């Protein structure tokens, strides 16, 4: 049973793959973004920051370039 679980985990791990910086075309598409409108997202963050006296935790900026 232990070996079977190990094998299953190993097989599942085979599905993991690093997306290279030059392969991020699909990730950079608009429909792949967490928020549909960047400006609106920033405005929400601003309101959140002023109401809650805290900011951040909403993910990194940028379109999947790995550079900004």
């Amino acid at each position, binding site marked *: 049973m232990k070996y079977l679980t190990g094998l299953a985990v190993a097989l599942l791990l085979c599905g993991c793959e690093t997306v*290279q*910086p*030059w*392969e*991020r*075309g699909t990730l*950079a*598409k608009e429909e792949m973004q967490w928020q549909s409108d960047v400006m609106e997202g920033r405005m929400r963050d601003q309101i959140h920051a002023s109401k809650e006296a805290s900011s951040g935790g909403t993910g990194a900026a*940028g*379109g*999947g*370039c*790995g*550079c*900004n």
Partner: protein
Amino acid sequence: MLQRLAFCLGLCLSLAANAGVKVGDEAPAVALPGIGGTVGITLADLRGKVVYVDFWASWCGPCRVSFPQLEAIRRELGPLGFEVLAINVDEDEDDASEFLSEVPVTYPIVRDAEGVTPQAYGIMGMPTGYLVDRSGVVRDIHQGYKKSDGEKLRETIKELLGE
């Protein structure tokens, strides 16, 4: 057992650290087709010139900033022996063509949809530019691109042209 594991981990880390081109290395060969299946200019063709090997994609925001600046630098320093070799890594060539119709440039552009060259150079982000001197050695690596980067890049290129 632990020792062996540590050794393997160390080996993997050292391999990862060694991957990719560093300043002072010979620039890996670039021999790719041009846009529209044309014969592309190779890096070897440009030996003797200072070359900025620029990896770009249509979906990369900073690339849109870098293109007009590289074009301007090339117009200015091209007669002194500077050239840009832009490598497009878009999966779909139409995306690249659309980008180029919006941000037209006159320097040579080649295509690498398979990602063989970026792998060989070990790029960490888009865009990444490698400044190759007249003897084919990488002298500067430029990751990402901001509007203010153009002036510094221009100065570095000028220095290399004067060597």
